[in-house]
């Protein structure tokens, strides 16, 4: 008897939805290759982190409640972002602490929410991907994924199976890139100093491509690399793992 399909609700994240839909399609492909039935609930917008981290609990709660409504019917919720997955996993239960009904629903959803790459490896047991990406790459560990969700080995393990890919470790890969949501526009001078330190580390590796698992960090690092005129290309790790790298890299124009 065939097993019931695993229904995954893809939380595509507001940044991927707006800036980089190809990451969403890469996530769909990776999840389907891992035997999941992927659905994208139309009612999703954002996880509420901008409000939450700005101290606006009322709006954060309203948005979180909507996310819980929208996604709690799925077996799993998967997001191509450690930051947004961390918000659902670690912070939704705190947001509803003291509200027994909502807290229980938040906890239940949190327990079934994963960042994309760690979901593939830790839940679906994916060990290799069928993709090719010749060249030297380096990888930045987004803070929430690394420190809230413990994601470090997973992307490296899957990248090791990509044909032709040569991963050079990024010095200080665990140090924040300076994005930090609204931080980067509230304190541009500090953010710039931080992302400048990051791009200097990228340059040290000699990598042609910089990968990470969070679009916020990627937009920040790509924006800085492009402003500085470097030709390092910047992509979400899902694009490379899915073998979907035909479109220009983040912040790069049409070829030719």
């Amino acid at each position, binding site marked *: 008897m065939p097993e019931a399909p695993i229904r995954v609700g893809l939380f595509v994240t507001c940044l991927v939805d707006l800036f980089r839909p190809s990451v969403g399609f890469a996530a769909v492909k990776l999840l389907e290759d891992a035997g999941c039935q992927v659905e994208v609930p139309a009612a999703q917008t*954002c996880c509420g982190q901008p409000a939450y981290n700005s101290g606006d609990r009322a709006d954060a709660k309203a948005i979180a409640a*909507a996310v819980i409504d929208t996604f709690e019917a799925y077996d799993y919720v998967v997001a191509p972002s450690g930051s947004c997955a961390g918000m659902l996993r670690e912070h939704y239960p*705190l947001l509803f602490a003291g509200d027994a009904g909502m807290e229980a629903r938040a906890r239940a959803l949190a327990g079934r929410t994963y960042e994309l790459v760690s979901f593939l490896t830790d839940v679906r047991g994916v060990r290799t991907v069928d993709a090719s990406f010749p060249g030297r790459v380096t990888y930045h560990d987004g803070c929430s994924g690394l420190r809230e969700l413990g994601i470090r080995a997973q992307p490296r393990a899957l990248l090791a199976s990509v044909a032709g890919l040569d991963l050079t470790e990024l010095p200080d890969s665990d140090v924040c890139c*300076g994005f930090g949501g*609204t931080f980067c526009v509230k304190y541009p001078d500090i953010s710039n100093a931080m992302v400048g330190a990051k791009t200097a580390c990228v340059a040290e590796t000699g990598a042609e491509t910089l990968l990470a698992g969070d679009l916020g960090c990627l937009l920040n690092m790509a924006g800085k690399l492009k*402003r500085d005129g470097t030709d390092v290309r910047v992509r979400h790790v899902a694009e490379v793992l899915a073998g979907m790298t035909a479109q220009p890299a983040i912040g790069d124009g049409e070829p030719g």
Partner: protein
Amino acid sequence: MASPVKPAMSTADRSFSENVRVAVADPQLRRAMHHVKEGFIGKRAKAAARLPEFEILRDAARDIKDHTLAHLDLYLERYEAQVIERGGQVHWCAGPAEARATILDICRQAGARTVTKGKSMIGEEIDINAHLEAAGITPVETDLGEYIVQMRHERPSHIIAPAVHLTKDLIEADFRAQHRQFPADRSLSEVPELVDEARQVLRQRFLDADVGITGANFLVAETGSSIIVTNEGNGDLTQTLPRVHIVIASLEKVVPTLEDATTILRVLARSATGQEFSTYTTVSTGPKRPDDVDGPEAYHVVLLDNGRSGLLDGQFREILRCIRCGACINHCPVYHAIGGHAYGSVYPGPIGAALTPALDGIEAAADLPEASTFCGRCEAVCPMRIPLPKLLRHWRERAYEQRVTPGGLRAGIGLWAFFARRPALYGFVTGLAARLLRALGGRRGRLARLPLAGGWTRFRDLPAPEGRTFRSQWAAKKSTRS
């Protein structure tokens, strides 16, 4: 020798944003902060890795403090009783003014003209040096870093490394300008030479001092002892040579027993400097007893509250677990970018951002909890497992509730939340934005400038969206599939 300390440091008079602009443009500070990154982080990691039970000790240390804070009244009373039993006195001080008055009183009664000081952040918190100066008493900082910042009329830029914002060549220049008694052609470019010279200057000061003031890393309820850790031995001379020893400490420094103190000591130096133990761990208990060969004739403890007891019942209680090791500061990329003075507060870095609003009020310190990316590196290394990002977020909530959060940010978040709560409208607006930004990005695929986005585009290009939102493409795909 050092001339009077200015009553307020210049960075406290400017806005945080202005401090930041000055700091990030300072190449000398860049170099100095590079040493913080290179020095502390690797050493702490190695020290933690060498001790298999390090993580267990962190839990134990946290639990000791949690227990103590839950019974703080009991342990403080026990501590006071023990201090009195050993011939000392405890002065309970609600705020800085009371603490300063108490210290001045003790100094005057002792007829003090010179006061030596061991390193103390509480001393900074109550601004004791300026007040001693004003009363005609000369405070002499004896910790090398503190000695240097006092000489420069600055404040410490770090809680355990006060002069970490300076480079060796700057300190050499200061010594040459201030220590005129030494030959001008002496060699002074190496750290041991600087240390030797400071020692020579300080030696007579130690002997001259009438009163010695030290901080405390721990107050031990069981014995009435205070414990300090130093690497220079200056604390020992400060507290044993003068006639009067004053310990200044905030009330959360108390732990129940010596055993508890030693448990926390095992994580303190490892987290701070990567040492297994500080060079000196000094326990002082009361004044000199009849058979003691040395020690002070009088022993006073100035116990400062300054708002801390108000934190016991509430969401900021975990701040009081802090043992001032500085690990959060050493690992903070924001601190690395701006240094300690830019914060404009006594305590810099993540712990400063969490503590300062409690001491000065959120209105005065609203920028500090905002200036964090919540990267979580501070919490990851805090030996006491203080959830610093969570505490900073709680301050942002306070600021938001009390409308301290800037209007622009409030309006922006409010507008964005309005759309985020209406998926159909949100989809329509983001669809327009995606197409518009895509068009503006053109063939380059990025924008160098964008109205209202100067915070982003001043230093970075904005990568242009691909053109259509994921949700709209997905919806279109679904409708052709079915």
